[in-house]
């Protein structure tokens, strides 16, 4: 076998380069999950916490399609509770500051969510008062 040394060396370099992210991660140590702001009063999200944690993005996609495409506005949760399908109007009622909840966790997970490019991060007083009466 000719050039065995070069080939083995090349394979070694290749192996190190390919696995570099793993070594980098080990070298940096274990990242601590971010401290998230918990809702002040509510104890329970609209669906069980485990489901929300794993599949909130699918739920929000379903809400988006239902509201925009089918003009449905009300989500009847598995426990029978009715909720308005609104990111700003419903989610932010408990998760008051997306910076300290959504965005913080997404930054940790390295997943970019562009919801807030358009949707408001803050509920306005005038509109939230209207919302209490059932308006959008």
């Amino acid at each position, binding site marked *: 076998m000719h050039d065995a040394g070069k080939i083995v060396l090349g394979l070694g370099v290749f192996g190190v380069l390919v696995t570099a992210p793993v070594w980098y991660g080990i070298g940096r140590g274990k990242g601590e999950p971010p401290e998230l702001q918990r809702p002040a009063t509510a104890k329970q999200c609209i669906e069980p916490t485990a489901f929300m944690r794993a599949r909130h993005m699918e739920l929000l996609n379903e809400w988006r399609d239902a509201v925009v495409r089918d003009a449905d506005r*009300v989500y009847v949760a598995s426990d029978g509770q009715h909720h308005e*399908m609104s990111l700003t109007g419903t989610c932010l009622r408990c998760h008051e500051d997306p910076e300290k909840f959504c965005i913080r966790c997404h930054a940790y997970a390295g997943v970019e969510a562009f919801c807030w490019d358009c949707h408001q991060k803050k509920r306005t007083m005038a509109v939230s008062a209207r*919302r209490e009466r059932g308006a959008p």
Partner: protein
Amino acid sequence: MTMRRRSFLKLAGLGLAGASTVPVAQALVRGARTEAGPDALKGKRWAMVIDEKKCLTRGGCDVCVQACHRAHNVPAMANPRHEVKWLWKEQFGHVFPDRVTPYTPAVMKERPTLVLCNHCDNPPCVRVCPTQSTWKRADGLVMMDMHRCIGCRYCVVACPYGSRSFNFEDPRPGLRGEPTDYPTRTKGVVEKCTFCAERLAVGQRPLCVEACEGIGCGALTFGDLGDPASPVSALLRENDVARRKPELGTSPHVFYLL
């Protein structure tokens, strides 16, 4: 074991019949579902009638425009070529070019006329949209799904009324005052009037109509053409009404009493 063609086809047919009974779409969570709000306005065919004479009595009034643009977070752009608008006033001669002659006096030709998306029966914008981000609802509203819009602007070109605006820049710095809860748009999407779909869903009529009534003018009437008792049906029955560029076959559903 060998299988004859006949028995294979039979089995395949049975399998297909069985598969067709499986529900196609399932809710994400067992027992959860979505539904329309209890107050949602339902119509067969929404339409608007603009009484131009009433509108003109108020001269340069633009409460409807202000109310709409404020509520929907429509920005005021510094660059006029980047202008975004849902509802605005245009010179009569531009709105109805076939209704002016070389002998029409300038005051008539240049009188401000309210224009918005016509929510056509046969909307050219919908035909050309490659992502179906604009589509016509069963009740006639021509809707926009900002989540899907890729900013190709075919619809802007296709619309014969210039009802659509493109966001050439981030609209947020140009907002008029504090934003409402209505989502802003983002750079690179097209927007237009949606007949206040978000208000119909909670039992309210379009904001421009309410704003106009609020000042006691009542030049704008909104309603369901599928309902013969609705005010729009009555207006169309009893008046000579005009539509913009009817010759194009788009069948606009914003009607003008000239």
